[in-house]
C-alpha cells in the first residue's frame, strides 16, 4: 500500500490549479520509518508527502484547527478517517465544497512495532466512504466483529472490571490528549473546561479522570469511528477504546 507518488501528483496538480490553499498529508519523520502528519501551504513542500501503511494519524483532526478553518483543504483519508470526516460533514463542522478528499481503499495500517493495528483487523468499512478521488481498489464492506478484548472484559465479574478500570483511571494523567486528538471533539470549549463545571473543575485527581473520561465516552457514544487516535496520543498508553467501543451500537 504505497500511494506516495499518486498523492504527490494530485497535490501538485491541485496547488497548480489553485483549487486548494492547504494540503494535509503525511511525511516521514526524518529519523526512522514512522510518519508524522504535515500541513503544507506551499507547493514546494509537496515532494515530501508520502503514504504507506505507516500513515496512522487521522488527518480529519486537522479540519478543526485554525490553519484549515475557512480554507480550501486537500487531504488524504483512510477508511476510518473518512468516517469521521463524514460525521464532521453531517454535523456541519466543515463545508464539503471546501474540501478535496483523496480517499484510500485502506488495507490496514501498522503500529510502531510493525504489527497490524487491532482496529484495522476489525474494520468494517476499510474503503473511504466520502472522496473526490479514490486510490486503490475498493474491497467492500466486511462483517462486524466485536472487539475481542471488550467481549472478554464484558464477561468478567464486576469486581474484576472495577479493578481494571480503577487502574486505568489511576494511571490517567489528565492531559486531555485523547480529547484534543479526537477528530470528533470539535467543540470550541469543552464542557469539562467550563469554569461552571464545579463538580469537575480541572483538578488532576483520579475521580476527575473518571468524570472526564466518562463524559468524553458518553459524548462519543454512537459517534466513535474507531480510528484510535486517542490511544495513539495517550502518554500513559491507556486502552481507552474500551470505554467508547462499548457504547457503539
Amino acid at each position, binding site marked *: 500500500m504505497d500511494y506516495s507518488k499518486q498523492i504527490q501528483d494530485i497535490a501538485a496538480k491541485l496547488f497548480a490549479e489553485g483549487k486548494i490553499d492547504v494540503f494535509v498529508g503525511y511525511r516521514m519523520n526524518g529519523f526512522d520509518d514512522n510518519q508524522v502528519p504535515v500541513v503544507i501551504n506551499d507547493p514546494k513542500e509537496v515532494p515530501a508527502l508520502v503514504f504507506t501503511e505507516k500513515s496512522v494519524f487521522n488527518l480529519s483532526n486537522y479540519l478543526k484547527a485554525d490553519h484549515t478553518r475557512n480554507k480550501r483543504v486537500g487531504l488524504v483519508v483512510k477508511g476510518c478517517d473518512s468516517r469521521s470526516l463524514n460525521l464532521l460533514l453531517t454535523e456541519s463542522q466543515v463545508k464539503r465544497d471546501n474540501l478535496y478528499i483523496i480517499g484510500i481503499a485502506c488495507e490496514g495500517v501498522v503500529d510502531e512495532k510493525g504489527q497490524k493495528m487491532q482496529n484495522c483487523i476489525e474494520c468494517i468499512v476499510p474503503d473511504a466512504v466520502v472522496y473526490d478521488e479514490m486510490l486503490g481498489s475498493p474491497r467492500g464492506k466486511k462483517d462486524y466483529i466485536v472487539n475481542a478484548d471488550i467481549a472478554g472484559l464484558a464477561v468478567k465479574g464486576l469486581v474484576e472490571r472495577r479493578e481494571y478500570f480503577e487502574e486505568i483511571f489511576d494511571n490517567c494523567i489528565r492531559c486531555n490528549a485523547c480529547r484534543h486528538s479526537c477528530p470528533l471533539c470539535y467543540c470550541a470549549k469543552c464542557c469539562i473546561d467550563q*469554569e*461552571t463545571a*464545579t463538580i469537575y*473543575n480541572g483538578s488532576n485527581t483520579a475521580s476527575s479522570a473518571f468524570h472526564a473520561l466518562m463524559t468524553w465516552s458518553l459524548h462519543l457514544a454512537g459517534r466513535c469511528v474507531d480510528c484510535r487516535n486517542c490511544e495513539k496520543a495517550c502518554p500513559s498508553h491507556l486502552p481507552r477504546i474500551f470505554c467508547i467501543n462499548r457504547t457503539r451500537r
Partner: protein
Amino acid sequence: MEALLVPSLAKIDRIIQETPDVRTYRLKFKDDSISEKFSWQPGQFVEFSLLGSGECTFCISSSATRKGYFDCSIKRAGVVTADIHTDLEEGDDVGIRGPYGNWFPLDDIKGKNLLFVGGGIGLAPLRSLIQYCIDNRGDYKDFTILYGARTSADLCYKEEIEEWKKNTSIKVVLTIDKPEETWKDNVGVVPKILEEVVKPEIANTKVITCGPPIMIKYTLQSLDRLGFAPKDVITTLEMKMQCGLGKCGRCNIGSTYICKDGPVFTYEQLKALPDEF
C-alpha cells in the same frame, strides 16, 4: 508550598455598589493578629477567594494609611466575579491571601507633580495611591486626577470623587465617552481630554495610569506626543494569575513574573518586555 496557598478568612464589612457592574467590598480580617500583621503599599494585590468558586486577583483599592480595613473593587466579568456578585452579602466570609507584588515607587514620586490618568475600573489601583498621597499631601506638589468612563453611570467612587473635588489642592477632571443630557463635565475619550483640557506640565511630573488595554495604548501614545519621558510614566499590568508567588508560571512575560516583578511597571520597563500582553 501548599501552606503558602492557604488563605486567611476575612469578613465583608460593607458592600458599596459603585456602578451597575462594579462593587467595592470592604474587608476586615476575622483574626485580629492577622489584621495587625497585614500591611500593604499602594499598588499591591491580594488573592481573593470565594470558597467553592475559586480565586481571583484583585488590587487593594484603599490605602494602608486608612487603618482597620481594606477595599477590593470587583467588576463582574468572569465566572468567579459573577459568583462573588451574586453570592456574597455583608457579613459573609471570604479567603484572602496576600499582599503580593510590588508597589508604586513612592520614593521616586516624592516632591513631584502627580498626574493620575484612570479609565473605568482602572481607577481602583490608583485610588490606593491617591488616598496615600492625600494623607501625605505635604510630600507632593500639584495634584491632578483625570478620570474617564464610558457613561456617567460607569464612574466608580462617585462619593469620593466629590470629596476630592471639594479639596482645593486637587484638580479633578472627569470625562465620559459620549454626551449625556445631565452631564456638565467634559465629553471625549481620555487621551483627547488629556491633550486638550488637562495640558499637563511636562517637567517634574510623574504620570500614573491604569485602565482598559485600549485606553492604556492610546494614552501612552498621547503621553509620548506630549513629551513625557517613558520612565516618568507608571502603569500597572493585569495578567491572569493564580498563585501570586512566582511559581505557577501563568503571568510570565519573558523572564518577568508579573506577580513578583510587577504589577507596577514604568513605560520604560514595559517597552523592554516582549509584546505579549
